[in-house]
């Protein structure tokens, strides 16, 4: 060790919109790093001019911005390794970035660090139809995998709403979900092998070509680790046969509680829908105005229930689901007449975020998960908190797996609005934890929810996370300041006490 630890100055406790703050990098050190990286990268693969860095200053959570010191765009594993080794030797932070569509600021750069873009790793390396897998580079777009194997009757199941643009490497880093998680699982359930480079430049492969691998389940451990443990350079994903048929039923309710009861009744009947989505009135009206999906705009809630599988089973389950909707007091329910109408029903749901975005200059998307049984209570409480804060909230909900996306409407140009929004968001997440849920279902912690980690986890659990991070990245150079808060930060946040000043693992660095 011996070198000076450089701390990423991101995410101070009271951050708002951040523009490049004071950097603690000496110009001399920066020049020396540029020279070192120029030796290992083609000239066009290293960006250092401010106007070239600008596109990388934020990810999908644009309220947080920071210019990186440099951007590296390697296109071989050897180049990635060389960048990591150069940064490790100099104690320079590295933030890996896929397509930059993440919603929690996980790819927010460090002003004193290198932003490592994996965008050029966009090749599908091998499709193994017999074993139903595809070996791909991390920059391959999620949807591109399904498109490449469609002719084989196969597809890649996880479908985050950004699937047209998001990269599979980012999906692994965030353990991305989508609307079909309840039946088909998250990213962690749909990958089989990963290769990653440690910050020291060592190539490690976890998982394998078989369904399991010897040793600890590091495939699962790497998934969702938000770029803090290693830089993923190759992924083998599992492919599933395309279902024979998919059909969707739309039902309207005059009461959110009734819709919640219908969700419980479907699950209780032993049906595992491919997707089960709920939208509240504000979200329904926004979506309807935007895409004219045929949603009933006076409903308090709608449910979209997708059933897929063998033709006969889908037919049987549609009848069952429609009967359940009726018993639960649906004011209306329709089965999509054809593929066009099915696509239209989904178009409204998939456009819900941008549609809500048209109702106000800005919106802030939350991502808590709750036990489904608390749905009505949580939505009621969100309504009350929204009124108290004077900020409208639209609710879009992966009802099948309890993953709630409240969208808070605000105006960033109105003084104090963003701060109020963040306070409301924090209260919503704390409510999710209070009912036995979690602060993030699929978007990751990033910088966004770092304070709420102090509420969800005990001091000793956080210290355990730091010890595990240390096992991969002892100097804390990979994506510093994200995902796991320091105990000190939690103490400042006031949510937790470090008893008697006693810190666990006192010999460990805190990052």
């Amino acid at each position, binding site marked *: 060790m011996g070198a000076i630890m450089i701390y990423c100055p991101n995410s101070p406790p009271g951050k708002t919109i951040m523009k490049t703050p004071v950097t603690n990098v000496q110009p001399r050190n920066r020049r020396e790093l540029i020279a070192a990286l120029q030796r290992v990268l083609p000239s066009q693969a290293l960006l250092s001019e401010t106007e070239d860095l600008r596109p990388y200053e934020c990810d999908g959570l644009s309220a947080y911005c920071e210019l990186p010191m440099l951007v590296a765009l390697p296109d071989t594993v050897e180049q990635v390794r060389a960048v990591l080794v150069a940064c490790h030797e100099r104690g320079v932070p590295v933030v890996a970035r896929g397509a930059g569509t993440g919603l929690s600021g996980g790819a927010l750069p460090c002003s004193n660090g290198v932003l490592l873009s994996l965008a050029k790793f966009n090749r599908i390396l091998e499709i193994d139809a*017999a*074993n*139903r897998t595809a070996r791909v580079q991390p920059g391959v777009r999620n949807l591109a995998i399904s498109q490449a194997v469609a002719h084989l*009757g196969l597809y890649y199941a996880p479908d985050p709403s950004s699937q047209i643009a998001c990269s599979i490497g980012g999906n692994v880093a965030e353990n991305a979900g989508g609307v079909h998680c309840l039946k088909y*699982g998250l990213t*962690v*359930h749909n990958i089989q092998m990963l290769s990653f480079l*440690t910050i020291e430049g060592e*190539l490690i*492969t*976890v998982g*394998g*070509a*078989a*369904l*399991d691998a*010897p*040793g*600890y*389940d*590091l495939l*699962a*451990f790497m*998934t*969702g*680790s938000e770029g803090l*443990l290693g830089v993923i350079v190759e992924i083998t994903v599992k492919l599933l*046969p395309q279902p024979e048929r998919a059909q969707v039923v739309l039902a309207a309710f005059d009461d959110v509680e009734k819709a919640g009861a219908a969700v*419980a009744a479907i*699950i209780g009947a*032993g*049906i595992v829908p491919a997707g089960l989505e709920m939208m509240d009135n504000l979200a329904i009206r926004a979506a309807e105005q935007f895409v004219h999906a045929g949603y009933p705009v006076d409903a308090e809630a709608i449910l979209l229930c997708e059933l897929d*599988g*063998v033709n*006969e*089973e889908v037919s*049987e389950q549609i009848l069952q689901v429609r009967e359940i909707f009726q018993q639960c007091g649906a004011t209306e329910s329709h089965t999509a007449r054809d593929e066009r109408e099915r696509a239209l029903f989904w178009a409204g749901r998939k456009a819900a975020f941008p549609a809500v975005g048209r109702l106000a200059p800005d919106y802030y998307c939350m991502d808590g*998960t709750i*036990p*489904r*049984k608390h749905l009505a209570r949580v939505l009621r409480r969100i309504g009350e908190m929204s009124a108290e804060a004077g900020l409208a909230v639209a609710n879009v909900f992966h009802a099948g*797996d*309890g*993953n709630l996306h409240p969208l808070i409407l605000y105006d960033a140009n109105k003084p104090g609005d963003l701060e109020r929004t963040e306070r409301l968001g924090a209260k919503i997440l704390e409510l999710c934890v209070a009912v*036995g849920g979690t602060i993030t279902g*699929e978007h990751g*912690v990033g910088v966004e*929810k770092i304070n709420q*980690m102090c509420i*969800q*986890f005990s001091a*000793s*659990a956080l210290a*355990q*996370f730091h*010890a*595990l991070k240390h*096992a991969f990245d002892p100097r804390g150079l990979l994506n510093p300041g994200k995902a*796991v808060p320091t105990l000190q930060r939690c103490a400042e946040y006031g949510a937790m006490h470090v008893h008697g000043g006693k810190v*666990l693992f006192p010999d460990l660095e805190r990052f």
Partner: protein
Amino acid sequence: MTDTNDSADQLREQVRVAAHSGVPLQISGGGSKSFYGRATVGTPLSTIAHRGIVTYDPGELVITARAGTPLTQIEAALAEKNQMLAFEPPYLGESATLGGAIATGLSGPRRPYVGAARDFVLGVKLINGQAEILSFGGQVMKNVAGYDVARLMVGALGTLGVLLEISLKVLPRPATELTLVQHRTPNEAIEVMNIWARRPLPLSACCYDGDGLYVRLCGADSAVRAAHDKIGGEILTNAQNFWHALREQFHAFFDGPLPLWRVAVPPARPSLRIPGKWLIDWGGAQRWLKSDTDAATICRTAAEGGGHATLFRGGDRGGYIFHPLAPGLLALHQRIKNAMDPQHIFNPGKMYPNL
């Protein structure tokens, strides 16, 4: 013994003493899988008294139970609500506990079609090597807050911590199950299993025992009937017994004194050339081998086939058990072990000699 008992404090105290003295602990549940892994020595720590279902809410598809809870108790509670542990944990003995099922991470015949034990773990409460009680994950389906320590514990053979509680996703039982039998050669069987897996068929198990190819279909009546028409084959009448015998290794294949190997390979891999008796499960992805061929040959052949081999039962329990890890990966395992169990008190050597 009562159905419910919380002995977390006693277990924690035992860990605290061990961490202080540095005397290793040998963790066990019901002892049904104590043969598995490498032989170890240490002071016994039994989770068997820490038992009982903590919460079970069928509408949430989640059950949380203490590690010492017998699997029979969990499966009975689920069956009452027409639900199940979809990964079909092998008991390998009546005394099997939930903690043992998760620590070994073993899964039954349904695994290739619905997922393994690790896929159903949502959260755990554990004691780490510093005698702290920690919770990771949770009781909800989607949760990406913090590193996935819960899944890290699955299959870690108790080398990283003492499991106290586990939350699992459960699934509804299928309305109908039907098993069909076809007579095939081994390579035909492997090929046809993988052709089926590429089609949207309601498969829930697929095995070849050297004689017959057994395929289990599940789902709505109509779906199972339609799939039967597509696949063909004779209906097996005592199907539940067959799959139970396979999962529990009562099937005649498992008889006899030869060491039992578990060879995991890409499912479509044609037969491996290792002398011995083979049984192909998991649609080709898990192959059982009864053989006295030397470990080095089996290990090498499995690796050449794209997979790995485990000496599951019998043979030299102090020699080769699990496929060796690449040096960088082993070093990472050791650092993870140090992070969870700095005094190396939990089942040292159970998985690899230096872990």
